[in-house]
């Protein structure tokens, strides 16, 4: 393994967390959306994180028995939350049904805020990690100078 594979790993983490942040933003923005192109209220979206070994991006590391233990992270799919929508009694609402209930998105704003915070924290951790890798590379380049 080498420093560039470490950079790749960190970059994959940053990407995944940014995707997560985007989905959280989408959830928050659509917390009150009752109409969607696919019909019905907005459904909460969640990223599905999976690992993949770093050897998938670095061919020459396939011979290194240790390299399979270093994993990138990927968003394999965006899961749509299947839990039933919240029923809110609001007969004046244009989308109210015959009983006066409106189907509202199954989004808990507090939960989304917590997700946003953890995603930001993980993103910042990735940025710090990238800085350390850069300092290692710079130290290696100075090997000849005493």
């Amino acid at each position: 393994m080498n420093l560039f594979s470490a950079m790749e790993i960190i970059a994959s983490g940053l990407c995944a967390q940014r995707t997560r942040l985007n989905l959280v933003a989408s959830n928050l923005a659509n917390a009150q959306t009752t109409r969607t192109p696919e019909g019905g209220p907005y459904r909460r979206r969640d990223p599905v994180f999976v690992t993949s070994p770093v050897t998938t991006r670095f061919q020459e590391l396939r011979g290194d028995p240790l390299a399979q233990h270093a994993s990138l992270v990927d968003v394999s799919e965006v899961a749509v939350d299947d839990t039933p929508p919240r029923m809110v009694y609001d007969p004046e609402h244009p989308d109210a049904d015959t009983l006066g209930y409106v189907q509202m998105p199954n989004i808990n704003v507090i939960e989304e805020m917590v997700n946003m915070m953890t995603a930001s924290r993980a993103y910042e951790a990735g940025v710090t990690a990238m800085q350390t890798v850069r300092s290692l590379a710079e130290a290696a380049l100075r090997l000849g100078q005493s």
Partner: protein
Amino acid sequence: MSQLFESVQPLSFALDYHVARHNLITSNIANVDTPGFRPREITFENELERLGGSLPMQETREGHLPRPDAPGPGSMRVYEETWASPGADGNFVRLELEMSRLQANSVRYRAATQMVAQHLGMLRYSITGRR
């Protein structure tokens, strides 16, 4: 004559070790939110003896890096760490711990490069009379 760089061999191994460890630590950090993920740690023989094998680790797969010319350290081994309490998604990563490890590992790598540079400088001086 080929023992010219013998004194630098353990440091060279240390550099390889710290790069491998950095990869595993960054991998743990990148997977802080991956469900079911268990953080990985890497040791080599001497270090394991020093730790007394007391960490709650279980060996997953063995990663061998044979280095017959390096005194002391033998093969490197990768372990999964399953600490007491995982998160709700089964993830065992502790971000603060990984960040601390990252900083410590970074210092050790940079220290090793400095030491190698000093060794090489001394060699050069003994050969040419100048740095």
